[in-house]
């Protein structure tokens, strides 16, 4: 593994390491210090996500962490069916060939179906199969009057043996007792605007074809002891 030198600490790479095609470059812009991740479906590349992350696809450079507090301020189109925003993390070890790996999802959303719900999930993947997760208890509904189409802060506090999800700096739920591989890997950041109804990337059934889904990000922070 080769951590990025300080000179490119804030380098992001487009797409994920297993993707054979990346989204159109026009989907990534900045304006007034806000990052816009926009995915238009369908597009010529048949790509259903606009994703950027802090690891090169060959792991030659990366920014990744073991334990800490991971937070982002962002907004998304919570009432648009098919909108699937994600602020999540995968381990560098997976890129390098590990067959048992973790996944930490700081936040995900399902536009239209769950406009007032935020999902936070931990997975254990073994040979590509989702062997363990907290999907039976991985969501919270925001208070009345809170609009997820406006900016909010989404956070995950990861300490040895414990994961606590935060919304606007308030704890929402905690998961313990997860597989040990989770704590033993180093995770890079991923920001994405995806399109997929019912958690299925590329599923446009009942969704808005020829429409765009946007995630806007003010900042992303990582804090460590």
């Amino acid at each position, binding site marked *: 593994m080769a951590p990025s030198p300080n000179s490119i600490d804030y*380098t992001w*790479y487009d797409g994920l390491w*297993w*993707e054979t095609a990346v989204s159109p470059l026009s989907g990534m812009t*900045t304006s007034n210090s806000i990052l816009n991740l926009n995915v238009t479906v369908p597009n010529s590349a048949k790509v259903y996500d606009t994703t950027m992350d802090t690891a090169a696809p060959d792991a030659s450079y990366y920014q990744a962490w073991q334990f800490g507090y991971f937070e982002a301020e962002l907004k998304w189109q919570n009432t648009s069916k098919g909108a699937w925003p994600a602020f999540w993390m995968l381990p560098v070890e997976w890129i390098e060939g590990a067959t048992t790996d973790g996944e930490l999802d700081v936040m995900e959303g399902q536009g239209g179906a769950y406009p007032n719900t935020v999902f936070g999930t931990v997975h254990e993947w073994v040979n590509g199969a989702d062997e363990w997760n907290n999907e039976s208890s991985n969501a919270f509904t925001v208070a009345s009057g809170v609009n997820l189409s406006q900016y909010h802060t989404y956070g995950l506090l990861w300490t040895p043996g414990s994961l606590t999800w935060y919304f606007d700096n308030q*704890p929402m739920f905690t998961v313990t007792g997860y597989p040990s591989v989770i704590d033993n890997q180093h995770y890079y950041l991923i920001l994405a605007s995806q399109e997929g109804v019912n958690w299925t990337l590329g599923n446009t059934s009942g969704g808005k074809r020829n429409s765009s889904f946007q995630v806007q990000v003010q900042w*992303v*922070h*990582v*804090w460590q002891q």
Partner: protein
Amino acid sequence: MLRSSVAPFLLLLILTSFTAAQTRPPQLPSTYNLVFNGTFSKLNRLYLV
């Protein structure tokens, strides 16, 4: 589903960062320090073939 091949070219996004101090979230003790400050004041693009 995971796939083994990688896109034929890679795009490197360099996003410059503000240097302004960031406020520690109130739920974190003072032993936590900011180690990554991802802000998006500027986006440069470099193509790697």
